[in-house]
């Protein structure tokens, strides 16, 4: 692997995210925000908790899809940004390097300390994370253990990054290229596991997971 993950994380975590005079932070080809992690977790938790058990999965699906679509467009914004060109692109030799580099940026943004453990090009990716903010949702539950796997953002973004790598040309409309892969969370720190584990496969293979 050509990507120096630690260097990318170190460089990208220092990228300036200062707001302009209008209170807007344009960076990585998107408008960035730096809000408390509690905001994202609170909204997710409050959306899922009040609904009946048989509907929780539907609401989780909406949260995952929001992250998946975000990850697709933001991921593309990241890998085509001047910040990427400066810090990551010189190390990139192939599409797998792009994926490893994207997860290093993903980590530098504070989404999760997430790393690819297994990659079958065009078929499957296994990501593991030993630290992610979505696991903090467990603190609100008895015994600090959440009743459900809750890393909807990581799930969505893992699927999206596989879309970008192997789902064909980027489509800004999202009509093609998006949702060619889907990701399942199989372990979660929030539920007492040692780490979070995420498996992304082609959409047609998803139900077999």
């Amino acid at each position, binding site marked *: 692997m050509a990507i120096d993950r630690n260097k990318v994380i170190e460089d990208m975590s220092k990228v300036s995210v200062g707001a302009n005079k209008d*209170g807007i932070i344009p960076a990585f080809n998107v408008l960035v925000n730096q809000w408390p992690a509690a905001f994202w977790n609170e909204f997710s938790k409050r959306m899922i908790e009040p609904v009946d058990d048989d509907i929780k999965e539907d609401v989780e699906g909406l949260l995952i899809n929001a992250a998946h679509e975000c990850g697709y467009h933001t991921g593309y914004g990241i890998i085509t940004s001047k910040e990427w060109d400066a810090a990551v692109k010189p190390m990139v030799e192939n599409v797998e390097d792009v994926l490893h580099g994207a997860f290093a940026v993903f980590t530098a943004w504070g989404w999760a*300390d997430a790393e690819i453990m297994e990659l079958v090009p065009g078929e499957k990716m296994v990501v593991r994370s030993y630290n992610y903010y979505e696991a903090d949702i467990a603190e609100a539950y008895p015994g600090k253990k959440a009743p459900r796997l809750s890393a909807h953002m990581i799930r969505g973004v893992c699927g999206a990054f596989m879309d970008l790598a192997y789902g064909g040309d980027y489509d800004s409309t999202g009509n093609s290229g998006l949702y060619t892969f889907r990701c399942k969370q199989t372990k979660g720190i929030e539920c007492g596991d040692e780490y979070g584990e995420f498996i992304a496969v082609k959409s047609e293979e998803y139900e077999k997971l």
Partner: protein
Amino acid sequence: MAELKLTHTFDAKNKRHFLNNRLTVLHCHHYATLFTQLSLDAKDIVDGTRILQESTEDVFYNVLTAYYKENGITDTSDRIDIAVQMFSAIGMGKMVVAASDTSGGEIAMPHAYVDEGWLKKWGKNKEPVNFIGAGYTAGMFAAVFDKPTRTYSVTETKSKVMGADESRFKVTG
């Protein structure tokens, strides 16, 4: 004018960002607007827009209340200055407090992050969408005037996403 002091740190071991020792994360307009759209789409299942507004109110009430306490900010105008600067520093846009007292007030947003993100992503909308901005405003008024959350009701009366030159919010106590 009181000046906001923000210290950013990155915990290299755990890969986490902090602003004034409070855990933050970088996200983008896609995620914020998709959460907003999700809150609207889920209306038949759950009151998503209320949840989005109240989640924002609670989180930023806590952020501002902690800041005021840690920095000994007690004067109302200083508190408003800090809240307005915080709003911009974290990328929410630009806020102007047109009127404010314990009974409510009015806020203008010449730049509103959610609206500008929405316009960039989808274009104009027929209804206001800045539930996050409204929630911040409600939390800010509660924190500034030492009131509990849900004291203030915030309604968006003018919206950039609908084509207005600025967004405006009416605050009633």
